[in-house]
């Protein structure tokens, strides 16, 4: 597995290096599974996607290279939608309208016919950028109390960093590990209550399927969350970038928008919702192309006008990202020449079922069943001596564990302290969607047993 040499530091995980400032000794070979990045993990891109992309970048290919008919047609439609027929032109700020339409049709189909309007869709450089823009509308950094956003514990770290940058306060609500990391409305209520006088909570941020937990919310849970948001007048931010990665038995992704619509008026007309999706996850895994979008639901028309201005200061999303979104929204159908013969879904399901089992069989590690998403988030039961040693070194115990795992076993994972967890518990997060998964598990097991022995 490749790693990037970066001056005298060896850079493995963006989180580890830049947030905690590690200086690591280079190891013989390093497997970096701390990213939610399929391609980095060795999964091949989809041929259809790359053929379309290449021919859009270099249109001469349409005539000079043997491409399947559906690729040719798609390229022609997409280039026809670009100004001047070039992917090098700027696009309107919400995105190329042909693609906004494709995306809104995708959303409608996914939601069993619930209407979706292209003007409510804004494409950006990755979903993180959309999230940032929506937060900009919500966060006042000049009010007497900071703006609060209800955020799950655990949650991936970039979101928390974004809140900090904007001067917003995190209002933590704990997911229930014993219940497979489920979200409970009672806990939301407790969190909101605890925030009184500390900040002014305006929004509730939900990730479904979860990151790092992979928990897939039931429809009932989603309804309860929506009702809670309506009662407490919270803006709902539903980060649904892992919606295509669902494999747990009996699990099904249903979008917040669909549930909201099916709950009928008054809620369906009044609850304000932003749903986020991306081409970085799911079956395409095209993280590097930076294609994300937000669908804004029930926003005031006057606010929409300002939303447009905020999005327009980026000028537009990268065209390659917009193309990726179109291909995600509108993949080849059965019967099309490029319809894939091999199912990536099958590979995913196979991967996910046995991983928690293996982890549960390692003494000192427990793991909830994987329902979806891109990560496993197993719990570590660290010996007292180990946690004390970590204190002496001046690091969170699971961060120190990760450092040692990297240095001694050549495996790079993320520490639970980065995502948040109940006091006194420790976790690690890593991406099992990697061709090196078996090796990772073996090395992890060997290291963990050795570690337990050292501190018993």
């Amino acid at each position: 597995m490749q790693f990037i040499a970066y001056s005298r530091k060896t850079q493995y995980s963006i989180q580890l290096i830049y947030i905690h400032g590690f200086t690591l000794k280079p190891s013989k070979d390093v497997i970096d599974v701390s990213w939610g990045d399929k391609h980095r993990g060795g999964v091949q891109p989809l041929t259809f996607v790359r053929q379309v992309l290449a021919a859009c970048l270099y249109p001469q290919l349409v005539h000079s290279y043997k491409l399947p008919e559906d690729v040719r047609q798609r390229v022609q439609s997409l280039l026809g939608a670009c100004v001047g027929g070039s992917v090098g032109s700027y696009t309107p700020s919400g995105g190329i309208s042909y693609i906004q339409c494709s995306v809104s049709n995708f959303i409608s189909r996914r939601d069993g016919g619930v209407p979706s309007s292209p003007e409510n869709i804004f494409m950006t450089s990755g979903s993180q950028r959309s999230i940032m823009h929506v937060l900009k509308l919500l966060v006042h950094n000049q009010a007497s109390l900071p703006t609060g956003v209800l955020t799950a514990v655990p949650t991936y770290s970039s979101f928390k960093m974004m809140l900090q940058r904007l001067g917003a306060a995190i209002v933590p609500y704990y997911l229930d590990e014993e219940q497979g990391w489920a979200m409970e409305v009672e806990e939301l209520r407790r969190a909101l209550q605890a925030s009184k006088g500390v900040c002014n909570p305006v929004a509730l941020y939900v990730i479904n399927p979860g990151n790092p937990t992979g928990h897939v919310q039931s429809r009932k849970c989603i309804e309860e969350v929506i009702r809670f948001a309506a009662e407490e007048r919270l803006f709902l931010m539903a980060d649904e970038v892992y919606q295509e990665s669902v494999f747990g038995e009996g699990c099904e992704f249903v979008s917040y928008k669909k549930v909201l619509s099916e709950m009928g008026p008054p809620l369906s007309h009044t609850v304000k919702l932003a749903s986020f999706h991306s081409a970085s996850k799911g079956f395409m895994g095209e993280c590097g192309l930076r294609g994300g979008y937000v669908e804004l639901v029930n926003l005031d028309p006057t606010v929409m006008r300002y939303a447009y201005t905020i999005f327009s200061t980026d000028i537009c999303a990268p065209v390659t990202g917009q193309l990726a979104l179109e291909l995600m929204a509108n993949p080849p159908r059965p019967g099309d020449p490029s319809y894939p013969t091999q199912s990536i879904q099958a590979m995913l399901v196979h991967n996910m079922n046995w991983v928690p089992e293996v982890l549960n069989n390692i003494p000192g590690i427990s793991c909830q069943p994987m329902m979806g998403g891109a990560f496993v988030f197993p719990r570590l039961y660290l010996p007292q001596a180990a946690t004390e040693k970590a204190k002496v070194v001046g690091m969170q115990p699971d961060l120190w564990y990760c450092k040692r795992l990297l240095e001694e076993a050549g495996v790079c994972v993320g520490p639970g302290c980065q995502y948040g967890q109940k006091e006194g518990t420790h976790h690690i997060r890593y991406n099992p969607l990697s061709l090196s998964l078996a090796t990772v598990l073996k090395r992890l097991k060997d290291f963990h047993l050795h570690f337990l022995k050292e501190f018993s």
Partner: protein
Amino acid sequence: MAVSLIEKYRNGCRPTNPRLPIVHIFCFSQASCSEAKCELQKRNMTENGLGHRVLNMDTMNPNVKRVEYAVRGPIVQRAMQIEKELKEGVKKPFTEVIKANIGDAHAMGQKPITFLRQVVALCAYPDLLEDDKFPEDAKNRARRILQACGGGSIGAYSASPGIEIIRQDVAKYIEKRDGGIPSNPDNIYLSTGASDAIVTMLKLLTSGEGKNRTGVMISIPQYPLYSAALAELAAVQVSYYLDEDKCWSLDVGELRRAVKVAREHCNPRALCIINPGNPTGQVQSRQCIEDVIRFAAEEHLFLMADEVYQDNVYAEGCQFHSFKKVLFEMGPEYSSVVELASFHSTSKCFMGECGFRGGYMEVVNMDPEVKLQLTKLVSVRLCPPIPGQALLDLVVNPPQPDEPSYATFIKERTANLDILAEKAKMTEQVLNTVPGIHCNPVQGAMYTFPRLSLPEKAINAAKEKGQAPDMFYCMKLLEETGICLVPGSGFGQRDGTYHFRMTILPATEKLKVVLKKIREFHKRFTEEFS
């Protein structure tokens, strides 16, 4: 929760008591509130009586209200609407909308550079490496880039500051451009267009409260990304005026005046300069750059040099000098002290690849602690798009004379820049033949920013409509000719003066037609309002 009455009136809606059932809401015909939308708003509020408390004009971040970005503002939105109408078959005095409002070369028909597109296509679909129709040098570049990508794919995230070998290539390019002055790859941050890096730096620089709030100096006129970012960050904009009578040159005396006044109400910390200029196109002389550097050193200001148009220099006697080069040639008294960030992009110059969102910044003399913060700050947005990074790599590492693609590359590059130079000259000449329009020479960049003499009656008519006079002019121009320009008020200008910004990018024949139509329109306009 008390609802601000003033806010409600400003938004064109009568105030209502949130605790009573909503009976009636009036909406004046403001730009934002159409009747239908207000009806919907009324229904929303009636149905749960609470809708107004979640995100609305009162609860929205107040800084957002101050953000304006003229290049994508109301006139462009109207232009898009007209385009829709034309498509639907509505009859107009013209058959197409010519969007001369944005610096987008490809949109106006400029063809992409072959070599650049070949390499990115090879990166996108590596199977093409087997195809013998691609030249060997393109294949080598692609292989090198792919090797540096996670999993050998442009679909993998890269490190947040960008792919390492590309940062190295950028540093080498800068060294070569600046006559050997060293550039450290660790100081190079790749970005999503130059805008991303500019806003990141402004974020980093903005702090303090009240009189200690960061002030950022920016030219008038300026590219409105700066004013928009400063409004959103609630930093203080400190304007310094470029001298229209002296070809939009920068005078240090004016910088001194501006900073002196600013120190009374804020803490000036940065000085932004766009060279070659946008919208004015002026190319700073070497002497001027030295003066600015000296001024920044004296006043302890962080220099931000926006150099995205560095290849777009046309006028005789003008030459691009990078701020970094001049800084280092001024010796250690300045080069070891002055803090500088220089910005570049793949959107302009000879490539015009706006849609790729490729760019970088180089930081010089940045405090190591601050640099760590900068590195953390960029990590929040994960990474810039890989295709944009790849394209940037080719721009800084183009075909060499001994490589197969060299001849075509040079031919295409030279042609693009030569055509722009011709159009710059033609534009200046034609506009200066129009009585009431005065156009400074377009020394560089991609725009002209001519001054308009508007009749008193027109100015009054504009005021009645609640529009800036040059917006009024541009709107009328759009409705009558289909030509979309951006009014000078969107960039800033001296009080009582009026301008528009037009790009020089339309194809030569089309540009001739555009200039002719503007000339005719101006005559009509002047007559109508005399």
